């Protein structure tokens, strides 16, 4: 047993907290399309420190998922990826496919939104976790299966030993996602990337999965990139937050920075759009218009056409991320200073309906 046992004690080979574990710089992803190149990601930079949770938030099409797929080198070969992804002293974008395979799953693990597509329907979940263990460790099948049961227990699946012989379709959505988390933990990774891990689930189940994710992170000591459109999930889980818009980070800071003192009108509008459960109803501040098409993007700030603070300079030059109140709170806005102390309803209009038309309609209504 002793030679077979898999030593996966956390901090085994992990460095000190605060050390940079993953560094993405100048990442660009372009897809070809009939209408011209689609620039899905346009210059993403971020660093991930040991043990921290970085939340990436943005709406559909903001490039948040493509960014992490590029880090994992999981994009189709037609995608053109440039820039640098530094991990363990190497640029992942320059590794050969076989070298990358050794990194994937063992050093960097990924959790996707839909567990049914991550799991193989014809193998038991125990076998699938064991397979992940054996892919990177030279151990017997029996030892790997023991480890699988142990992992299922860690993600709080009741009767783990029995459950290991279930097939994915026999489990509920929440249970399946736990299995996926167990697979991600299997090789004690340094980084876990979770892409919308709870989006398909009901809220009570979401709460359970967020607990399991936290447990996985503590158990392995891994740093985590948590991608989601849900600002509530980010508020509860992330140490630092990166807001993305049209393929670019537009604001980065601690969770407190971004939630309490946003310095980019988009973040401010997003927060003002959220109905809040913890206080009586207030007017929401919708953001007018819709995100730009990433094919043939016009020059200037991509948020400009929807932004009430928009001026001439916004049309001419696209703002770069720059330090605001503190050196670690960055925002990409020419008018970041103008947002000091501003509430969402000071900046955005809350009226939506056309009132003349509405009045006419009301008059005609019997």
């Amino acid at each position, binding site marked *: 047993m002793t030679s077979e046992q898999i030593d996966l004690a956390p901090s085994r080979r992990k460095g000190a907290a605060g050390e940079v574990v993953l560094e993405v710089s100048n990442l660009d992803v372009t897809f070809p399309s009939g209408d011209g190149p689609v620039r899905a990601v346009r210059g993403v930079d971020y660093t991930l420190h040991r043990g921290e949770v970085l939340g990436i938030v943005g709406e559909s099409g903001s490039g948040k998922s493509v960014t992490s797929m590029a880090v994992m080198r999981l994009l189709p070969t037609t995608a053109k990826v440039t820039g640098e992804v530094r991990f363990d002293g190497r640029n992942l974008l320059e590794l050969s496919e076989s070298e990358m395979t050794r990194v994937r799953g063992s050093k960097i693990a990924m959790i996707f939104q839909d567990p049914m597509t991550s799991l193989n329907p014809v193998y038991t979940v125990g076998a699938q976790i064991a397979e992940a263990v054996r892919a990177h460790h030279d151990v017997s099948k029996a030892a790997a299966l023991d480890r699988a049961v142990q992992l299922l227990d860690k993600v709080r699946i009741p009767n783990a030993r029995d459950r290991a012989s279930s097939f994915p379709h026999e489990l509920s959505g929440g249970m399946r996602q736990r299995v996926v988390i167990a697979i991600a933990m299997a090789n004690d990774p340094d980084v876990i990337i979770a892409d919308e891990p709870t989006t398909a689930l009901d809220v009570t189940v979401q709460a359970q999965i967020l607990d399991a994710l936290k447990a996985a992170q503590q158990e392995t000591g891994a740093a985590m990139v948590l991608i989601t459109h849900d600002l509530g999930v980010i*508020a509860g889980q992330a140490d630092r937050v990166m807001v993305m818009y049209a393929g670019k980070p537009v604001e980065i800071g601690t969770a407190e920075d971004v939630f309490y003192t946003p310095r980019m009108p988009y973040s401010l509008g997003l927060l003002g759009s959220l109905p809040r459960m913890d206080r009586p109803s207030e007017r929401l501040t919708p953001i007018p218009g819709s995100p730009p098409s990433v094919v043939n993007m016009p020059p200037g700030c991509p948020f400009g056409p929807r932004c009430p603070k928009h001026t001439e300079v916004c049309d001419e030059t696209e703002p770069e991320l720059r330090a605001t109140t503190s050196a670690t709170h960055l925002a990409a806005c020419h008018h970041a200073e103008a947002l000091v102390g501003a509430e969402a309803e000071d900046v955005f209009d809350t009226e*939506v309906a056309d009132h003349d038309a509405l009045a006419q309609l009301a008059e005609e*209504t019997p």
Partner: protein
Amino acid sequence: MSEPLLSVRNVVKHFPIRSKGLVRRQIGAVQAVSDVSFELAEGETLGLVGESGCGKSTTARVVLNLIPATSGQVLYKGRELTGISRGGMRELRRELQIVFQDPYASLDPRMPVNEIIAEPLRIHGLYADGGREQVRTLMQTVGLKPEHGNRYAHEFSGGQRQRIGIARALALRPKLLVLDEPVSALDVSIQAGVLNLLDELQSELGLSYLFVSHDLSVVRHIADRIAVMYLGQIVETGTSEQLFTAPAHPYTQALISAIPLPDPRKERARERITVVGDLPSPANPPSGCRFRTRCPKFANELTSEQQTRCVEQPPELVDRGDGHPSSCHYAESRALL
């Protein structure tokens, strides 16, 4: 109190489960809605909330007579909708309209938008009398440009499509709108626009809303009163204020505490009430209280004697001293926010 606009009484909806093969004998039933009652006053918004599979959408469809109830009554202005003739229902459809969740599936892709909005007017023979002008006004009202009327649905964004759905629902000047997850498919910045629009329409046109949603934050924002559903039954109901400041049923408490708040300090300091396990099958619900298999109170606080009552006796939806009705034998209101 004046007579409610809509009154739903003991509605039950079972879907048969049939055996495979030629005979397709009925071998059971999914109890999608089991004895649901509520009322909706004029100008009011009632939020129907719950997780997937709780029967909220089925209830909404039964209310509109889109699917027939197995038993029970739905009264609109005192008139019974269950078992009404087709002609009678058609007349009432002018006053009862629905907006669906998926703005991609609920609009005909081969019809220009002004035709989509005009269709209800044509069906009810009202188009000839200034229909064109009305369609323009409707488009303007919901924040669309009337000159885009000859475009097709796919040329619009999700938020705009949902506005088209709302304009179509408003075309016949209804009194009651059933909104079935109207903003769930939209990004938050767009969702806020649709919610504000619904607010403005209601105050100007005096509409009543039956608002079905899984999102408690959205429901708190829009609803005057809320009914929380679990496995086909209403487990707690009250004003928005009551349910969020003093929820009494363990399920409502768990739901509220499971929803993350977009406020880092508050969110991290919150007390959590977590439920265990997954939803039981609605074809074979637990005896007694349907929530007991996942109930944190049942598992952690009750003595085995008290538990027996949960197992044997289905709790009724009555006021248990919390100022609003809840269906838990051991209901106890708590402040969670």
